[in-house]
């Protein structure tokens, strides 16, 4: 049952990414490129996605998930260097290719060699992340 609803959610996610144009790198880079022909679409996508999510979060209060277990706890409100550094690295790559993890998977069937290469490199980066994290912790502890 969990797997069925996860499949359904992934399907909705992929449909939304495709219809909204987020699998098109020119659209994403067009939004980031404030000095070029600026494309505001991404802001509409974000707004359209945040609204149902905000309603869903309100609905979680005093309830449990439909398939049992517990909802995620209150968000940690403290910032740390890994959050900032990671987001900066992610942003650099996002701007460079115009792809982030969700659209990378959603466009894998029609993204050609570039799409496959991006996904393989992304997986390699994700596999390397635990080691980078450990090294960073060492650096932070030494300072």
């Amino acid at each position, binding site marked *: 049952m969990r797997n069925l609803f996860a499949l359904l959610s992934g399907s909705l996610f992929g449909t939304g990414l495709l219809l909204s144009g987020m699998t098109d790198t020119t659209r994403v880079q067009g939004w980031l490129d404030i000095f070029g022909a600026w494309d505001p679409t991404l802001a509409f996508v974000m707004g359209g996605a945040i609204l149902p999510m905000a309603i869903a979060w309100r609905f979680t209060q005093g309830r449990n*998930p439909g398939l049992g277990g517990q909802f995620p706890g209150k968000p940690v409100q403290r910032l740390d260097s890994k959050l900032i550094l990671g987001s900066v690295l992610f942003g650099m790559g996002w701007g460079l290719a115009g792809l982030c993890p969700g659209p990378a998977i959603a466009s894998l069937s029609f993204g050609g060699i570039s799409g496959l290469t991006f996904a393989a490199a992304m997986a390699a980066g994700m596999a390397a992340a635990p080691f980078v994290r450990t090294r960073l912790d060492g650096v932070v502890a030494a300072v």
Partner: protein
Amino acid sequence: MQTEWLWGLAGGGLIGSAGALYLLVNGRIMGASGIIGGLVDGSAGSQWAERASFLVGLFVVPALLALTFVAHDTHATSNLVVISAAGLLVGVGTRLANGCTSGHGVCGISRLSVRGLAATVFYILAGGLSVVLFRHVLGVI
């Protein structure tokens, strides 16, 4: 142009509904980098089937839609050095930051998470700088 904004809004609504479904039924935060990363580094543990099912839907349904009627072209660069570097940065960065556009952006901001908001501000700023640097200064994209 304006129809594209409407498609953006409608597609965004589907993305948010997907996140709402994953949260309300499965009790989990829909973050693409966490779902993929947990399978890549093995930290998903007993959740692997649930995450793999999500990814199957994410891959297969756009593939079917693209086969039929929806316009599709990623227009991604064919420069494999650039695309590899970008993929590595996205992979390492999202896992260090524990989230990407879906986890921090959509799911985090919608519950007023300071970390989600801060991450989003930093990856958008870095993304903007990246496009300026690599497109307008260095001319590689």
